[in-house]
């Protein structure tokens, strides 16, 4: 291996690592706030990428139907609850939010041909279609069992994951998609060619991480999420309900997932089930951070990206094996060095 290849692999590793880092942060966030190990995190990556690809091909993305179906289901559940409690004034809002907004979006997509829209509008539309799925999934799958044990929540996660994979196959088909590059610019630094798209992924990831930092440190909603993660009872007593915190963290996780998918879809071909493996690598990063520390999780995810990229050069057949085997020494190290804290 000469320096040029090493740099090239490093560039690759850091780019993928940045995406894994975003996903790792989302996983830590969701676990800290709701105790859910969010296996379907990767599906948002695939859904984001494939929804954007559908829009660019001028097709109506299948995620619209999912949005409409889940919105209707939630409107039924919430509407029934409001009727039972005689909160009649809440019903119009429930309908508007869960049925009206998705219908409006679907109508807009049917009316205009999405292929001719500028790229940024397409990206925005893709996010609008995929991000609401996060809180909706929380409302339907997790909120009813929010007080259950971590294991039960994990089983729910597996079920949601398998369901979403199936739905993805139905909506997007078995063939993969790749979206055109956001930018064709490339730079030559020494002997190495830096792709503009790679830089874009890095810069966007860093910006998103900074934005998340500000959200958690400076806004009252961000602080409320951190408070919920620290002390659930204390947060409830301040009026920060578990479902509010859950919805909020799932919205963030879905945004991060969809955004990551949109970022990487010009670099790799995404299939309906590609998200799982990408999400799992983020998960390895999150585990390195003990599902608790954001900076360690992000650093761990970068390490995963680098490890993957270099092992693909030396032992490409084993690259996934090497990455996932990393989890064993990490778990050993963590269980030996950290003291065990009983769950309340």
């Amino acid at each position: 291996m000469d320096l040029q290849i090493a740099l090239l692999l490093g560039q690759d590793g850091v780019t993928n690592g940045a995406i894994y880092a975003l996903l790792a942060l989302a996983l830590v966030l969701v676990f800290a706030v709701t105790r859910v190990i969010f296996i379907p995190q990767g599906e948002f990556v695939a859904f984001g990428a494939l929804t954007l690809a559908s829009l660019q091909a001028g097709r109506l993305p299948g995620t619209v139907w999912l949005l409409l179906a889940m919105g209707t289901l939630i409107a039924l559940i919430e509407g029934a609850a409001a009727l039972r409690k005689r909160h009649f004034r809440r019903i119009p809002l429930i309908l508007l939010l869960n049925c009206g907004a998705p219908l409006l979006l679907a109508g807009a997509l049917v009316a205009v041909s999405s292929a001719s829209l500028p790229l940024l509008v397409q990206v925005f539309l893709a996010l609008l279609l995929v991000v609401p799925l996060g809180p909706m999934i929380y409302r339907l799958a997790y909120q009813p069992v929010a007080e259950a044990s971590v294991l039960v929540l994990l089983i729910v996660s597996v079920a949601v994951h398998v369901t979403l994979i199936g739905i993805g196959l139905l909506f997007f088909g078995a063939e993969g998609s790749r979206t055109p590059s956001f930018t064709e610019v490339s730079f030559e630094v020494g002997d190495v060619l830096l792709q503009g798209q790679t830089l874009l992924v890095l810069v966007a990831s860093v910006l998103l991480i900074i934005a998340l930092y500000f959200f958690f440190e400076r806004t009252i909603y961000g602080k409320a999420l951190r408070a919920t993660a620290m002390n659930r009872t204390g947060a409830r007593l301040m009026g920060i309900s578990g479902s509010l915190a859950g919805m909020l963290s799932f919205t963030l996780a879905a945004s991060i997932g969809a955004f990551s998918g949109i970022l990487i879809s010009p670099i790799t071909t995404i299939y309906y089930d590609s998200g799982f493996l990408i999400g799992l690598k983020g998960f390895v990063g999150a585990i390195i951070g003990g599902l608790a520390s954001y900076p360690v999780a992000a650093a761990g995810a970068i390490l995963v990206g680098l490890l993957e990229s270099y092992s693909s050069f030396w032992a490409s057949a084993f690259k996934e094996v090497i990455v996932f085997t990393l989890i064993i020494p990490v778990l050993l190290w963590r269980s030996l060095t950290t003291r065990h804290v009983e769950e309340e």
Partner: protein
Amino acid sequence: MSTLPEQPERTVVLEVRGLSVNYGKVEALHGLALKVHRGEIVTVIGPNGAGKTTLLSALIGLLPVRGEIVYLGERQGAGRSVEQLVRQGMTLVPEKRELFAEMSVEDNLLLGAFDRYRAGHRDHLETMDQVFDTFPRLMERRNQMAATLSGGERQMLAMGRALMAKPRLLLLDEPSLGLAPLVIKEIFRTVAQLKRLGVAILLVEQNARAALQVADYGYVLETGELSLEGPSSELSMDRRVIESYLGLGGRL
């Protein structure tokens, strides 16, 4: 300390009738009835395990109850939730304080106003100044992590955080627990101060002497039932209370 007992305009903030709470098959509270008026401190004293914390957890909606709870003139239905009661101005300062340990004092206080912020009120900075007036010590510690505070400061922070919600009914669970006598004195002085702000306070205490000194009215809770009640000046003279809860010092 002595408000007129039957003033007609005294509005009832909380009225409880026939309140029972079960943990599985075990009945922890049985047929409780009590009343708290606006601007009044009501204390519930009793030994360990009498059900004092259970009573407050039930009132704030953390535990399911049987019986009738009327809060601010409204009967609480079965669907009541902590969040709803917080929105209506009921706030609990729990026995374990439940602070956000790895956040600064200031952020802890800020989150006390979370529900008001969410409801559209933007007066949390003024409220925080008032809390700092009440607890100058918190002002000095405003940038410190909550976990680094002393026991007394933690209790102050827990109370300050509750006050950020501008409560109409403040439920205090054992504010003296684990604190030094001098600190207890300071905490109770503040409790007496809060009364002047028009907050109704339901104070649950093992430290009967301190509680009866500051309260207007008192109840004695024993093994899940209220055994005695009366204006606190009378209660502190009651022979049974003196023997069981106050000891010799109560006669002074």
